[in-house]
């Protein structure tokens, strides 16, 4: 599903954000990405959703290689991913509902299919009552849940979540985490960057630990890898899910 091969990332300013990182995530896997601030967690996610390109090495996502991927193929790839951004990235002038619907409109979902999907996913994240609130009318945790709802609404092949519980209290965190587990149970791979060591320790999922751009620990290297199917092209069914 996702394979990093000797990937380095150098931003124009500053030192290397990633330094020779290699790992792979299988279809349907649940992976934690941990490490201190500035370690390179968000950078790994940005390489997956092709917001950035690697300076060296290759990133393969759902059968596409960063080496050969053209700019015009990027939107198509992104439609098969769901991303929860660390800074939410909600549209300020649209309601919670519209923000979620927007992700469906952009990929050409028929108008009458949008309403029910949006309502369902807002209920899942516990925001059914705040559907018509604008982002500035929501608390930090509520905004974060809208961002999660938007990432889920497409029924993505892979869910990338960057610190999805950073603004949530313990109970809400457990709720969201349960939601991610449910999603994962339906076959969606989840790659979640987090500082929340309590959650990481409490769950028996694979953990990748970053530090200063290097992958310093991979719990999978301790037990045998699952069936390696990461590189097989995946049928493009994400645009008309369900």
């Amino acid at each position, binding site marked *: 599903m996702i394979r990093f091969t000797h990937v380095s990332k150098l931003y124009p300013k500053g030192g290397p954000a990633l330094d020779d990182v290699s790992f792979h995530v299988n279809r349907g896997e649940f992976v934690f990405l941990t490490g201190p601030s500035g370690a390179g967690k968000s950078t790994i996610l940005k390489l997956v*959703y092709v*917001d950035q390109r690697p300076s060296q090495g290759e990133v393969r996502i759902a059968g596409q290689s960063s080496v050969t991927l053209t700019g*015009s193929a990027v*939107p*198509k*790839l*992104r*439609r098969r991913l769901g*991303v929860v*951004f660390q800074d939410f*990235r*909600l*549209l*300020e002038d649209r309601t919670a509902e519209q923000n979620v619907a*927007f*992700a469906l*409109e*952009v*990929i050409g979902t028929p*108008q009458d299919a949008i309403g029910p999907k949006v309502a369902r996913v807002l209920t899942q994240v516990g925001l059914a009552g705040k559907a018509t609130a604008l982002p500035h009318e929501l608390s930090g945790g509520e905004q974060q849940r809208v961002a999660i709802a*938007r990432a889920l609404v497409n029924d993505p092949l892979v869910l990338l979540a960057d610190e999805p519980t950073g603004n949530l209290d313990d109970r809400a965190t457990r709720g969201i985490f349960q939601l991610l587990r449910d999603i994962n149970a339906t076959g969606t791979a989840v790659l979640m960057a987090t500082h929340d060591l309590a959650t990481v320790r409490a769950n028996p999922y694979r953990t990748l630990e970053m530090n200063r751009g290097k992958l310093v620990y991979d719990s999978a290297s301790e037990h045998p890898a699952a069936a390696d199917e990461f590189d097989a092209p995946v049928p493009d069914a994400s645009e008309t899910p369900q």
Partner: protein
Amino acid sequence: MNLAVREALRAFQRAPMLSLLSITTIAFSLFAFGLFGLVYLNLRDALAQVEERVEIRGFVAEGTSAEATSAAVGDIAAFPEVASVRYVSDVQALERARRELGEFEDVFEAGILPASIEVRLREGQRDPESVRSVARRLEFYDFIDDIRYGEEWVEKLYKIRNIATAVGLSLGVIFAIVAIIIIGSTIRMAVLARSREIHIMRLVGATNGFIRAPFLVEGFLKGVLGGLLALVLTYFTFEFVGQYVVEATYFGSGLAVLGVLAGALIGLLGSAVSVGRHLRRV
């Protein structure tokens, strides 16, 4: 597409004055083209009529023999440009003057108007150039004292027509450029203002075409509205002139549709250039 139109309308709301200004400028551009186009059309007709009446008059010196003049009339009739030649004796000239200038009757006394040879030219040969060339050839006859032709009038009309065309074209082009600049700038600012939104659209998988569409629709709508406004403006100007100044010809519905299309083109162009340039940077 539905979404694109909705977003385009939102854009109007966000910058209503600037949108209005874009539309007005497009309208003025097309109005300038249209107005001076009408002036051109009408002057062309007027010129055709005036040219029909152009005639070259050579005044014959007193005491020239009838043979000499009639030989000259025959010669001149053979010039390729010439349609007809007529000899007008001094008596006929006075009569005609009395008839035409009745008002000043007392001013004219027998003998003060000389005889003349009057030449009319063929159609298509009545431009100032040909007229002057025939006039020069009349000068070769010794007994022709003085030559007059409506040269100033024809030249004046030609000049007016050329000036009107030039003024119309340049005003139109200037306004078109200003319109494109305003539209382009509006869109530049809209792209800047919406850069966050555009970035987010990209991140959730929107194609460039999808992002570009509302801006193009916006430009197109402005262009069409500008074109329609221009049509209304020219029509009222035309009506006003027809009522208070002179009867004039209006252009047909084909040209009208062309005008609106030209507006749409200006709008699209302004948007496309700007959105292309700025989206790359967002």
